[in-house]
């Protein structure tokens, strides 16, 4: 459906086509990470696998939280035992021992067995753990994936900090390279599985909480004061496709007035719209968004998806 590139394409058009290719490549990458889960109701949910970066970020946050809690509690115990007049570290040390034991072994397990199936770090990044077969996430799966962390993080680190003479340093280096395979295992498979995920039968998906925002078209009630002033011709609402509509949606929801002004100017130029005196950029953009969406949704009902402005 897309228009064949012509030899005489002007530079701006060339740039746009390259941007389009980049976008397609990005979309293909996202699609490769998307899995379909068919619910018992027969509807398909699209699960996107968490990327390596997201996973690493979540782990880093968890690591910081874990040891912040640890340090705070150790200080609290030290302060408490000092206040009670207990000399030495025996009682405080034992308490800390028990506490660190639980913190190290069960921090991840505790949170991932919870209702959100995610540690605080994962929740911040918008990830959750699920069973690969779409069924219930079992307790033993959570245990397995977290106990496996010993060889993914513990082992490379212990090789890295291996003390001793030159021989030990070489052993440490080779050990680190060998165990690094486990650490970077998620990069080596399609599903971004850690060794722990592989053994536990789980994977980590991107499940962010999205707020339902106001529909942009609802800002301009039908028959309102400004309604009549924007009457776009069929050619004008055919100028863009679904991709541009989504970009416009993002601009309207997130951008600053300056950016909105620039976008409005670009669109006016593209569709040849003569701004009336006193016309506000925001009103123009919302009206055009409504008109474009109405047109594209109508075409979609007839089974034609106009993906972007290059589509006919």
């Amino acid at each position, binding site marked *: 459906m897309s228009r064949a590139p012509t030899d005489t394409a002007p530079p701006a058009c060339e740039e746009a086509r390259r941007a389009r290719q980049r976008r397609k490549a990005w979309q293909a990458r996202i699609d490769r990470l998307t899995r379909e889960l068919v619910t018992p109701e027969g509807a398909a949910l699209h699960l996107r696998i968490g990327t390596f970066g997201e996973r690493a970020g979540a782990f880093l946050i968890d690591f910081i939280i874990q040891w912040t809690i640890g340090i705070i509690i150790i200080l609290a115990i030290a302060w408490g035992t000092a206040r009670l007049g207990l000399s030495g570290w025996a009682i405080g040390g034992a308490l800390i021992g028990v506490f660190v034991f639980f913190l190290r072994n069960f921090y991840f397990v505790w949170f991932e067995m919870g209702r959100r199936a995610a540690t605080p770090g994962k929740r911040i990044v918008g990830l959750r753990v699920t069973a690969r077969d779409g069924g219930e996430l079992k307790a033993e799966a959570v245990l397995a994936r977290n106990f496996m962390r010993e060889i993914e993080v513990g082992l490379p680190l212990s090789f890295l900090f291996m003390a001793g003479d030159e021989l030990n340093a070489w052993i440490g280096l080779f050990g680190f390279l060998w165990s690094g395979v486990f650490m970077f295992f998620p990069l080596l498979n399609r599903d971004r599985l850690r060794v722990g995920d592989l053994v536990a039968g789980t994977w980590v998906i991107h499940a962010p909480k999205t707020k339902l925002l106001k529909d942009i078209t609802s800002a301009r*009630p039908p028959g309102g004061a400004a309604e009549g002033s924007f009457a776009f011709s069929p050619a004008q609402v055919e100028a863009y496709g679904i991709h541009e509509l989504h970009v416009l949606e993002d601009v309207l929801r997130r951008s600053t007035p300056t950016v909105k002004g620039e976008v409005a100017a670009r669109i006016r130029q593209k569709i040849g719209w003569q701004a009336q005196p006193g016309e506000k950029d925001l009103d123009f953009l919302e009206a055009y968004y409504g008109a474009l969406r109405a047109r594209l949704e109508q075409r979609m009902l007839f089974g034609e998806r106009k993906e972007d402005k290059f589509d006919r």
Partner: protein
Amino acid sequence: MSDLLKSYRFREEREADWKALEAILRRAETGGVRALSDDQMMALPGLYRQAVSSLSVARSISLDQNVVAYLEGLCMRGYFFVYGPRTTLAQKAADFFRHDWPAAVRSAGLSTLLAFLCLFGAGALSFSLCMTDMDWFWTFQTGMFDMRTPNASTDYLRSTLYSEEVYAEDMLAAFAAQLFSHNSRIALFAFALGFAFGLPTALLLMYNGAMLGAFVALFTDRGLGYEVTGWLMIHGVTELFAIILAGAAGFMIGGAVAFPGRLSRMASAREAGGRAAQVALGCVVMLFLAALLEGFGRQLINVDAVRYTIAGGTLVIWLAYFYRPGRPGPGGAS
């Protein structure tokens, strides 16, 4: 303008129900099923199904990214809640101790035997080597700060086995030191290293067994064999059993990865992984108990016979707990 938009009308008609579902889910995610009122419980399945069908429709008629992303997230949360686990953490823990743990240990019979042979085979080897020539001790024992070496006097060695004056603080300190001594870490390592076809697990077990054998040989050489065994075994039965089981968990995974049989390698690893993880969790529990026994039991009890009794008693209890026949689990006899 808006009245032309089907997707807008579609959203307007259903938005209240979506919001109601979201409120119920938010409540359930923070407070659990029990936080929901009867009305909410009744409404949940209907609202969930409606949201799922809304999602299908929205995908085909709406170009509002926000609505589709919102519904996608809402349905996913609904799905995980509606088809998610129903048991509480306390229930899971009770199941674990009542039948899951012993059943998992029973299913690892062959691996347990292998781990036992690795640990005690290496132990016996280093013991007999050291008994013929104590110079071997230095090969197996590499602890740099330990005074218990062939250079120490017999009286000193004997004094390390018994505590004359017992202070509560010493016991706590010993308990804490035991927890810090990375035993639980070694156990989890033995489990995790099983993934590399079980070979590093075997090496880890043999290494620890050899150290133990050399240690016992040193004391036996000075005529303290009976005493040191009591000193070791009062907590060692639990601790060594735990390490053997951790090794067994590693071998389960290693075996499943190396010899998947008729299953695919992935399915085989997953099938063994769950059971092996339960065995490993059990090891962490056992090592915690062993730390208690070491910290308190060994310092309070300085009579060899009593030490042996406790050692034998714990062995009987563990064996009975794991291998007592005829205990069906909830999913049928195992």
